[in-house]
């Protein structure tokens, strides 16, 4: 069926090509250090059309034989104009120079200034690592995931958490990719920091709904993070020393201008953090995390390039000598770009992802050890075909094998009395194929139409439990290694369009269907590293979502000010929740704890953004609602999702006083999380036991906070040698004690009385970071 569709497309568009002789201009656009620029623009003035570079900096443009003036640009860089006499296929590689730092040009952002109006894609937000650096950082740690949480439609799961909710979706419905490898737990330290070292990152793009057909597997968003490739012209180093961690990054060419590598490392210091605790017990603990990113690339010839990306990170926690807990991710991607022709770009990848955790009680006689891990190996082939300026066709296939080892606990030590407890292991195969076309029939309209097909299969060796209608285990079936015992499949159409009203404004709309085959069995607001990923199975149907979005985009002052308003509606099926008092830890019958039903969300997102000039930043406001209806939860009545926050505001601003001095501020506001309150009480066993309201019937107090930061640069005028900067950040500058949780308990002093206490996390927290560059 797919092949028929490809042939059909070829025939139609080949026919159109017969009208005139056409030739292809293609190549790569990079910056001066050799970093490929993603989403740079190639514009042919006389034809009023053009193209953009893909994730590897490659572009291809097929236009009729003629003389042209072609403009290559990327905001923040000096544009280049090339006069081209096109009478044969041409290879034009372009190196763009960063705009020299004058007082007028400040912020460097990713795409052509009016891209938000002209590109068809909507519900996306792109941010460069350099822009992320400007946002006041929590404890001085510049963080990708914290920056994402400031965008409209995105909410932080809870204070300090790296988990985020996009348009009423749960935190496990975000596909987080680091150079195409899935990162299963992107949090360090309960989520206060993410696993992404900003120094190793080039580009981050968040798709909130309009997810391209090439991607799938999660319902609510795609966070596509690309690592830097490394300077391929000369050796460079940079790093920083901060309140929480220190970093060092080294980049260098392997063969000048043909290949390069980058190594980035970061480690936190336990002591400094624990110093903030007034509790003596806490100071006996050991707590640290580290990240190591490595990437290498090599240009074999004009048609072939290879890339190798590797990441490893870990969190370690030791309580005195009694108890230890550690967790971490590892990812590995090997990619080969191959140009079959000037018009057909392809990429082949092998990707490995691994997440594991381990905890134990290390008594010599009666110890205990509990491990869990999840790993994937994936093969992927992606093609982009640029037949003419009106069409860009993308297609590809992928196959993933998931291995789940949810939990194994056993006694260790000479006199152990503990038996072994093992949750059944299992495997799953996830196959996908997609085909999409970006069609530009005329200047005013762009349409993207795509279809993704996925197949998900459960495979042994495994044991599957069967449950009756009361969720009690009846019996179980064992499957052999390699035996496929269940198959799910689905089609996911993805469509979007952009209609230009004039040069400065447009209307965009999109529809996407997404499916998700693995979910996090998590029951708490602040996700814990002990949560496990559970695949769809004979007991759990795959999740499904349909999202509609419509938006109006308008630029002012010659594109200096971007504004947009977007409305969305999302319908979700087979959404998971857990029975009251669910037992999710080390429970082989965990599938019996799941309860599934419907969820839906809708909202309105407003954004005003200024990306150029001395003063830059954005203001975002989201008005939204997210609800669920699941039999057996809240007696089957509709209840608000735990991340339903009607109002959410973020103001992010940065001002460059001079080449040396920059200041930034951000202010966030959101409604409090929904919460279940006790309304009554009774006595049993000499204790006071609460009687609760309906689930999430009430709300915590509103949350708001302001952070500021100031950066002073030394040696700005030097072009070589050591340059450095000092950054002072203050988190929560007006010291608001935002409620993180409300606790209700018996009063220790008066056993007949109950009290309410609020738990709050971070008071005003200043931090200093010293960054240096060679």
């Amino acid at each position, binding site marked *: 069926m797919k092949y028929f569709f490809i042939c059909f497309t070829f025939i139609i568009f080949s026919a159109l090509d017969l009208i005139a002789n056409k030739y292809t201009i293609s190549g790569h656009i990079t910056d001066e250090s050799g970093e490929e620029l993603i989403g740079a623009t190639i514009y042919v003035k006389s034809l009023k059309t053009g193209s953009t570079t893909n994730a590897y900096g490659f572009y291809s443009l097929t236009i009729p034989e003629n003389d042209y003036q072609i403009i290559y640009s990327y905001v923040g860089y000096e544009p280049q104009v090339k006069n081209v006499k096109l009478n044969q296929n041409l290879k034009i590689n372009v190196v763009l120079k960063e705009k020299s730092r004058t007082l007028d040009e400040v912020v460097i952002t990713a795409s052509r200034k009016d891209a938000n109006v002209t590109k068809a894609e909507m519900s996306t937000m792109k941010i460069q690592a350099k822009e992320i650096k400007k946002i006041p950082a929590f404890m001085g740690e510049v963080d990708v995931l914290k920056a994402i949480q400031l965008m409209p439609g995105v909410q932080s799961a809870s204070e300090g958490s790296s988990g985020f909710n996009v348009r009423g979706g749960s935190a496990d419905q975000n596909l987080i990719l680091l150079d195409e490898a899935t990162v299963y737990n992107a949090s360090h330290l309960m989520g206060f920091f993410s696993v992404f070292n900003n120094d190793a990152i080039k580009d981050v793009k968040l798709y909130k709904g309009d997810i391209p057909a090439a991607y799938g597997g999660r319902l609510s968003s795609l966070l596509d993070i690309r690592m830097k490739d490394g300077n391929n012209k000369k050796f460079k180093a940079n790093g920083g020393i901060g309140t929480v961690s220190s970093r060092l990054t080294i980049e260098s060419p392997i063969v000048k201008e043909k290949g390069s590598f980058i190594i980035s490392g970061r480690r936190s210091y336990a002591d400094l953090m624990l110093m903030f605790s007034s509790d003596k017990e806490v100071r006996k603990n050991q707590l640290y995390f580290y990240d190591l990113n490595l990437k290498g690339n090599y240009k074999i010839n004009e048609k072939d390039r290879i890339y190798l990306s590797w990441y490893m990170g870990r969190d370690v926690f030791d*309580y005195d000598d009694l108890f230890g*807990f550690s967790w971490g991710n590892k990812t590995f991607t090997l990619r080969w770009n191959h140009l079959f022709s000037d018009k057909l770009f392809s990429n082949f990848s092998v990707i490995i992802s691994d997440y594991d955790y381990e905890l134990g009680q290390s008594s010599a006689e009666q110890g205990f050890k509990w491990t869990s891990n999840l790993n994937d190996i994936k093969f992927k082939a992606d093609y982009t075909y640029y037949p003419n300026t009106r069409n860009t066709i993308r297609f590809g296939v992928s196959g993933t094998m998931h291995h789940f080892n949810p939990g194994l606990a056993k006694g260790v030590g000479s006199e152990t009395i503990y038996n072994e407890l093992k949750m059944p292991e299992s495997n799953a195969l996830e196959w996908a194929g997609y085909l999409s076309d970006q069609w530009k029939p005329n200047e005013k309209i762009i349409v993207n139409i795509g279809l993704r097909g996925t197949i998900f299969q459960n495979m042994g060796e495994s044991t599957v439990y069967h449950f009756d209608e009361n969720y009690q285990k009846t019996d179980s079936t064992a499957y052999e290694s390699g035996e496929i015992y269940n198959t799910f499949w689905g089609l996911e159409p993805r469509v979007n369009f952009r209609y230009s009203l004039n040069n400065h404004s447009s209307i965009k709309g999109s529809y996407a269907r997404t499916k998700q085959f693995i979910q996090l069995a998590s029951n708490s607001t602040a996700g814990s590293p002990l949560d496990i990923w559970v695949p769809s199975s004979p007991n759990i149907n795959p999740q499904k979502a349909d999202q509609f979005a419509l938006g109006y985009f308008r630029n002012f002052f010659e594109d200096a000010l971007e504004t947009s308003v977007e409305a969305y509606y999302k319908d979700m099926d087979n959404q998971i929740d857990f029975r*009251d008092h669910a037992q999710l830890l080390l429970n082989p019958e965990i599938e019996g704890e799941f309860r599934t039903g419907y969820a839906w969300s809708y909202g309105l997102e407003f954004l005003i953004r200024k990306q150029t000039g001395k003063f830059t930043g954005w203001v975002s406001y989201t008005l939204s609602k997210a609800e669920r209806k699941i039999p057996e939860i809240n007696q089957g009545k509709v209840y608000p999702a735990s991340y339903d926050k009607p109002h959410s505001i973020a103001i992010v601003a940065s001002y460059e006083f001079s080449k040396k001095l920059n200041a930034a501020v951000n202010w966030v506001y959101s409604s409090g999380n929904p919460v279940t309150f006790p309304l*009554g009480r009774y006595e*049993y066993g000499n204790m006071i036991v609460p*009687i609760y309201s309906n689930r999430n019937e009430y709300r915590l107090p509103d949350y708001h906070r302001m952070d500021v930061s100031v950066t002073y640069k030394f040696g700005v005028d030097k072009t070589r040698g050591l340059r450095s900067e000092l950054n002072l950040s203050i988190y929560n500058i007006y010291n608001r004690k935002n409620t993180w949780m409300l606790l209700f308990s018996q009063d220790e002093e008066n056993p007949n009385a109950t009290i309410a206490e609020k738990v709050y996390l971070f008071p005003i927290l200043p931090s200093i970071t010293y960054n240096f560059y060679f």
Partner: protein
Amino acid sequence: MKRTFLVYIFIFSMSFFSCTEKVDIELDSTYERVVIEGNLTNEYKNHQVKISRSADYFANKPAEPITGADVSITDGTSNFELTEIDPGLYETEEMVGIPGQTYTLNITIDDKKYSASDYMHTCPPIDSIGFKRFKMDSNYIALIIFAQEPSEETNYYAWKAYRNDTLVTDTLNEVFISDDTFINGNYINGTEVQYIKAKKDDLITLEMLSITQPYYDFITKIMLETDWDGGPFDGPPANFYGNISNEALGFFAVYSVERKTAIISEP
């Protein structure tokens, strides 16, 4: 044991940057419920059933008893009537529960009937008990137990402790419970099952209760909604019922008891 991990994780999670402050909050009310707390054991004594009303969350006074109820326990053949000795407190005559039997509690309050059943398991004998200084706080000692755990069925246990003939573990959150997942059929060779404040020459009695799974689940749910609540890893709070019909809260628990006594010899 799973519970110990939860305790460690709780400490871990709460010990970091969080601070706590008392706040005044106004809460709404909910309709009144009947609350029943009853116990029947294999000891020859008067067994008690307490009946009270629920109240507003910030009522801040003892629970109001329900007087004049009709309370009886049956084993299927004989019926034992309970008499009200104090407001809300009903007692049997001196009697003993037999392991292997199912007992049903029947209560009538103002024409509404409530009933609950529970089964009495046997309890394995305790061979001996011992003591260890508790690592985390030296004022406490850990009571360790030596006994053979029967392997035939899944068992659930609770442990209470007496010091110099006074019950130390008198609130439910001091009672230590466990299933036999990790120890089924094994010889329990000195596992810690209780922690109390004690010193040399104290006479300590360890009491072991063999309880049913429904009662074990009920105690777990109470703990999840009281002492164990408050970590960021908790699931959402929820109401739960015991084994009593007609939407009454509480539990009628039937269990057998074994005891062992020893004197602390070392400091």
